[in-house]
């Protein structure tokens, strides 16, 4: 195994790229994909520490995160389809139905 710091920095880089994507993109689908990237970066951390301490609990947790990501993607994409049907747009800053 490599030193754990390498995995931490890889995870940090992917996490930051995901955050940049969430904040800067206007297309909601790409924002959702950036969230998937963030969840994935967390998984790298969990698996690296699971290997480091020889305890598979971290991998179990990563499995739960994958299940969560699937649920989140399904609901999020359902919302996007419903919204696109109503407003004909997928841009985040045109989604202002709840704005007073």
């Amino acid at each position, binding site marked *: *195994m*490599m*030193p*754990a*710091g390498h*995995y*931490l920095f*890889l995870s*940090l880089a*992917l*996490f*930051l*790229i995901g*955050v*940049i*994507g969430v*904040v*800067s*993109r*206007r*297309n909601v*689908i*790409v924002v959702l*994909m*950036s969230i*998937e*990237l963030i969840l*994935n970066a967390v*998984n*790298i951390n969990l*698996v*690296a520490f*699971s*290997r*480091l*301490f*020889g305890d*598979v*609990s971290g*991998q*179990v947790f*990563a*499995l*739960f995160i*994958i*299940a*969560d*990501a*699937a*649920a*989140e*993607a*399904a*609901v999020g994409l*359902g919302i*996007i*389809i419903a919204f*696109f049907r109503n407003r004909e747009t*997928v841009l*985040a800053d045109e989604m202002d139905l709840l704005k007073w």
Partner: protein
Amino acid sequence: MLNSIIFYVFASVAILSAALMVTRRNAMHSAVFLITTLLATAGIFLQLRAEFLFIAQVILYVGGIMVLFIFVIMLVSLDTAVHQMQFARRKWVVLFIALALGFEVGFALWSTRGMPGHGLPVQMAAPADKLPPNSEALAGTLFHSYLLPFEIASVLLLVAMVGAVVMAKKRT
């Protein structure tokens, strides 16, 4: 030696295609680069001897979630969206948030450099040939210690499935 070469190849592929994913205008290109990132991450899981998670990542993420994404990208009209502006007009906010987060986590990593596992080579990690079979160990832990969270996750997936169907259904 071979281990570290594999790690660096997969890590650079993951970071490069993640950066490309965020910066491409076309949402379909972003999806393809995200698939590359996820596959590279799966390779890192394999390098960490998490074989079950490697399979779960390939089948669930790449085979399930990303197909769903591509389906939706094709469903909403792509052609008009490409020509619109893709980035919000707040470059400085984005840069500030990224730098602040990076500094924060980087400082946390730097300030704990003396702790075992960071920076120092790890004595604790078991050698690869001494590990128990991965799927077996994972199943044992999942179904003994984490049985209740497992059941709750299944309820969550059921709720998400019903929710997605209700959301995407055409109102009559």
